[in-house]
C-alpha cells in the first residue's frame, strides 16, 4: 500500500468533504435587553410586537406577546431565526408596569427597532438598553434626541457573545412564527 498514489484517493476525500460541509449553520439574531429598571417595582411586564420586514410593527399585524417578568432580572433575551423568506424583521419592545395587578398596564419604556437584518448562517446579537432615564412620565415619553432612548433603524449587529447573553431557559424550538 505504500505505493498507492494519493491522487487516487482524492475523489473520495473531496466527496467526504462535500458531504461534511453541506449542513447550514443557524441564521439568527439574538436580542438582548439590558437596563437599569427595577424589577418588579418599576416594571413587571414585557410586551413585544414583531413584524417581518423593515416596517415597524402595528397593532394588527405581526405577532404580539406579553409576559410577566417579576421573577427575572436584566439582561433579558430572545431570538429570531430566519426561514430565508424575509431578510429582516422589526420589533417594538415595551416594559410596562401593572401587568400583574389586573389593571391596564402603563408603559415605562418603549423602543422600536426596525429593519434588523439577518446575516446568512451566522448568529448575531443586538443589545438594546432600556434605561430609567428613558422612562415615560405619565403619558409623556422622552423627546427624540437621546440615542439610548430613540428608536433604531437598521442597527449594527455584533457577533453573538454568550458572555453577554443570558443562558437559554427554553427548549430550542420556535415558539411561534411571523
Amino acid at each position, binding site marked *: 500500500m505504500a505505493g498507492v498514489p494519493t491522487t*487516487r484517493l482524492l475523489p473520495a476525500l473531496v*466527496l467526504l468533504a462535500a458531504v461534511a460541509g453541506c449542513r447550514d449553520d443557524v441564521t439568527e439574531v439574538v436580542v438582548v435587553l439590558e437596563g437599569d429598571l427595577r424589577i418588579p417595582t418599576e416594571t413587571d411586564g414585557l410586551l413585544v410586537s414583531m413584524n417581518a420586514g423593515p416596517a415597524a410593527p402595528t397593532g394588527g399585524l405581526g405577532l404580539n406577546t406579553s409576559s410577566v417578568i417579576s421573577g427575572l432580572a436584566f439582561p433579558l433575551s430572545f431570538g429570531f431565526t430566519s426561514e430565508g423568506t424575509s431578510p429582516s424583521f422589526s420589533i417594538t419592545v415595551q416594559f410596562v408596569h401593572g401587568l400583574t395587578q389586573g389593571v391596564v398596564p402603563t408603559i415605562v419604556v418603549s423602543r422600536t427597532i426596525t429593519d434588523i437584518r439577518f446575516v446568512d448562517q451566522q*448568529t448575531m446579537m443586538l443589545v438594546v438598553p432600556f434605561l430609567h432615564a428613558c422612562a415615560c412620565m405619565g403619558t409623556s415619553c422622552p423627546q427624540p434626541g437621546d440615542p439610548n432612548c430613540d428608536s433604531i433603524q437598521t442597527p449594527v449587529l455584533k457577533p453573538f457573545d454568550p458572555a453577554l447573553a443570558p443562558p437559554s431557559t427554553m427548549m430550542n424550538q420556535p415558539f411561534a412564527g411571523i
Partner: protein
Amino acid sequence: MLPASLIFAAALVAWGPVAPDAASVTAPVPEVPVPATAAAPPALTAPPVAKMTIDRSAAPELLAPSSPPPRTPTYKRWQFWVIAGGALATAVGVTIAVTRPGPQPYSGNVPPYLISVH
C-alpha cells in the same frame, strides 16, 4: 441521501484508467537495414543439419503454446481494498453527516423566546 451513482463515479475515478490488453499491444518492429546488393552473393547450400528430422515426442513442453500466468484474485489486489475502503469511509461519513444534530439556535430566557421569521 447521496446518489449511489455519485459514489460509483468516485470509485471509477479512484480506480484509474484500465491497462491496455497485452495481446493487443504490438511492439514496434525495428527496421532492419537492408544491405546494399552491389554484388550477387554466392549461392549458398543448405547445411546438412537442416535436413535432420525433429522428434516432437522428445520434449513436447517446448513445442506446446505457453499458457498465460494465473490471474490474481480481485480480493488480493490493492486497488480492490482502496475502493472498498473508500466506499466504506464514504458511507460512514455520509451516515455521520446526515444523522448528527445540527447547530441549535439560541432561545433566550424570556417570552417570546424563539421566533421564526418567515
